[in-house]
């Protein structure tokens, strides 16, 4: 899992091991996340979904260096498309995913075609502009399609044409998304997401290892040189953009599956910014980094925001009273309503001390361990800088 900023050929055997380890780690997440209080279905699902989102974003940003600031729009479009499938046709999740990804693909072809006419920050602002327009429209004018602020939710009275034709008018209760009769809620939904995540990771690995991935990296390091060699870079970029958009659409449909609701705020610039932060925090251009970043940000959002003074004083109960109070007072700035502060400090610390993201930290640690084993020889020079423009 070394940094992939430079193209690193790998052997099929090594990749197989990576995949096996990855699958094992993901599937056992409910066990090893228990000690830190993150092992409950909803958060596990979120880890998997935002992992997919970040992996997809990384295919565009990590490989080509094109920084999209509007990726959340694809997430939102995927969600809306999936929920509409639930409402109109069937609760079968495969149909929802297929439709969600398809719609997102079309949407990203259009947006990608326009935005990729520019590069650098001009590209970023174009994507941002499209995403903000989508968000503003979804919130207000497009309410008939998106249900605006209230978010698109399922109703018992929805048509669900296929389900009704096959099963007749079912029970009074709202149906859950299902995979051929298996209801996808709680842990079942997590394992479904986990399998999709593993597949998504595998595809991303293949792309990183492929000649196509190599061409994308070449665009990142010097687009002009690519053009002079006779390559038309635009089609490659567009394909990368669309693949990346489809990952976001996939993540969006999974969000709709684990929680059948689609809201406009999913498309806001803050959501687009979040995936950028996840990727850079973990390490852009690395295979695992974005996933790590996604996990950390979601953990902070869901767990740190819920810690209050009482829990803190329980945690530090073993300390003498005065010290306990002082520590609780200090710590409470960073948890509960102050969880944003923790996140901000974390961003700064990581960038200041680990320019390549958390993955660089891990690499340094392993290098350090290796060099100790080899008797003090230094290995490598830390991660190379990763120009993004």
């Amino acid at each position, binding site marked *: 899992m070394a940094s992939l900023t430079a193209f690193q050929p790998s052997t099929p055997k090594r990749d197989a091991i990576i995949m096996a380890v990855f699958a094992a780690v993901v599937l056992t997440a409910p066990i090893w996340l*228990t000690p830190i209080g993150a092992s*409950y279905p909803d958060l596990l699902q979120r880890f998997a979904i935002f992992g997919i989102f970040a992996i997809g974003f990384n295919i565009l940003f990590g490989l080509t260096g094109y920084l999209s600031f509007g990726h959340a729009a694809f997430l939102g479009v995927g969600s809306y498309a999936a929920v509409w499938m639930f409402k109109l046709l069937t609760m079968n999740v495969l149909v929802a995913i297929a439709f969600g990804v398809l719609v997102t693909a079309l949407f990203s072809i259009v947006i990608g075609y326009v935005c990729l006419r520019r590069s650098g920050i001009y590209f970023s602002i174009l994507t941002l502009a499209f995403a903000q327009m989508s968000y503003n429209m979804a919130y207000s004018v497009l309410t008939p399609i998106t249900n605006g602020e*209230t*978010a698109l939710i399922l109703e018992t009275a929805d048509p669900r044409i296929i389900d009704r034709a096959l099963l007749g008018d079912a029970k*009074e*209760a*709202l149906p859950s998304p299902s995979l051929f009769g298996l209801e996808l809620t709680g842990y079942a939904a997590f394992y479904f997401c986990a399998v999709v995540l593993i597949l998504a990771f595998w595809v991303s690995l293949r792309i990183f290892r492929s000649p196509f991935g190599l061409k994308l990296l070449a665009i990142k390091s010097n687009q002009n040189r690519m053009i002079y060699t006779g390559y038309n870079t635009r089609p490659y970029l567009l394909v990368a953009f669309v693949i990346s958009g489809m990952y976001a659409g996939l993540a969006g449909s999974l969000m709709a599956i684990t929680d059948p609701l689609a809201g406009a705020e999913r498309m806001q610039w803050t959501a687009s910014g979040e995936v950028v932060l996840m990727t850079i925090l973990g390490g852009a251009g690395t295979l695992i980094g974005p996933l790590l970043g996604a996990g950390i940000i979601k953990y902070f959002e869901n767990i*740190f*925001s819920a810690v209050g003074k009482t829990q803190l004083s329980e945690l530090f109960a073993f300390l003498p009273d005065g010290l306990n109070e002082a520590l609780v007072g200090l710590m409470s700035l960073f948890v509960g309503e102050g969880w944003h502060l923790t996140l901000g400090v974390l961003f700064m610390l990581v960038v200041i001390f680990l320019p390549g993201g958390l993955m660089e930290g891990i690499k340094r640690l392993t290098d350090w361990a290796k060099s100790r084993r080899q008797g003090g020889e230094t290995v490598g020079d830390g991660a190379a800088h990763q120009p993004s423009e």
Partner: protein
Amino acid sequence: MNKGKTFTRRTMLKGTAIAGAAMAAPTVFTRGAWAQDFRNDPGDSSTVTLGFNVPQTGPYAEEGKDELRAYQLAVKHLNGEGDGGLLNTMKPLSLKGNGILGKKVEYVTGDTQTKSDAARASAKRMIERDGVVMVTGGSSSGVAVAVQSLCQEMGVIFMAGLTHANDTTGKDRRRYGFRHFFNAHMSAAALGPVLEAEMGKERRSYMLTADYNWGWSVEGSMTEVTEKIGWETVNQVRTPLGAGDFSQYITPVLDSGADVLVLIHYGKDMVDSLTQAVQFGLRDKQVNGKDFQVVVPLYSRLMAQGAGKNVAGIYGSTNWHWSLQDEGTQAFVKSFGQEYGFPPSQAAHTCYVQALLYANAVEATGTFYPVEVIKFLEGFEFDGMGNGPTLYRAEDHQCFKPVLVVKGNENPTSQFDLLEVVNEVPTEQITYPHDLYAGDLGPYEV
């Protein structure tokens, strides 16, 4: 950071299996059906956990903070600490001040961020990990509707906090969701006669509406009511959420010939647009030989503080106000004021009352089984909670009680004295048929 009750995968699977079985088998419910298995049954545990899901970041963070204060106070009172607050005045009362059914009340909190996604994530955490029996809170209708439908799916009761759109107990009503707060329809119905009395029958109104569901529902209700008293609607303009500078929407009002501006904004938007409207001299204007007036259908303390002296003389409605003189209000303001040093906001009040109502229902039915609790709350009539006699209507889970029409105080005597109550509009005037906004509560058993 780990609350004692972690939800292991095993119990979860067991829970779903049993829930599935329960759904399949036809069941007959009897009062106090102890044997029923349901999600997050506290069982023999000596404590019971409630989930307080309020905005802690984002535009309504301050309101969320006040809601949290109220909940903490409610927990204290339920556990028999402090002066008991509304436990002393509520009628009928089953609570004994020894927790709920003898179990000590504990709570967990979460941050809704005023986003449906985040709010649902946070509610799910409370339900799946922390094992709460009830979720309550919220400071906007989008969030309330989203969390309410989640709670319906999960089979956990949701007691809505501050949510004002008709949808919450209208189109999107749910069996497991209850709202004590009033709504857009009631605001308009209450304001109508007061506006007629204060401003006359011949007025021309201009409406600036926040461009989303809540805004539209208030706009619809306000238009209907004002046109019924004979006002003419000159124009209705939709404004984007969070615009910040509203000047481009306010200047057209100046020469539109309108003599009333209805500002259908909430929170920060209302603070901004009202501040700017006053700067454009609208309050000092004379149009059609009448004083120009501004109306804000939904008032809150957050907004009155943010807009400062600009609220002077501006009409609006609220669910409750701390200066009411009834026994319940006095008891609540006293214990809240002693605890925190300032009077509670209407958001704090509605949240406190909701927490108590749930606890009382459990105590009265003798079980945490949500179906029984819901059946108890449906059609529950109570008094002494600050709003006078109140009914939880069974058909849509909406509370019916008098609505306050208030006015920004021109000469405040203290820093808390921002609003003065103009009229307490009786319940009959604001009651509407439950099928006016068609919706489906859904089943008891999920």
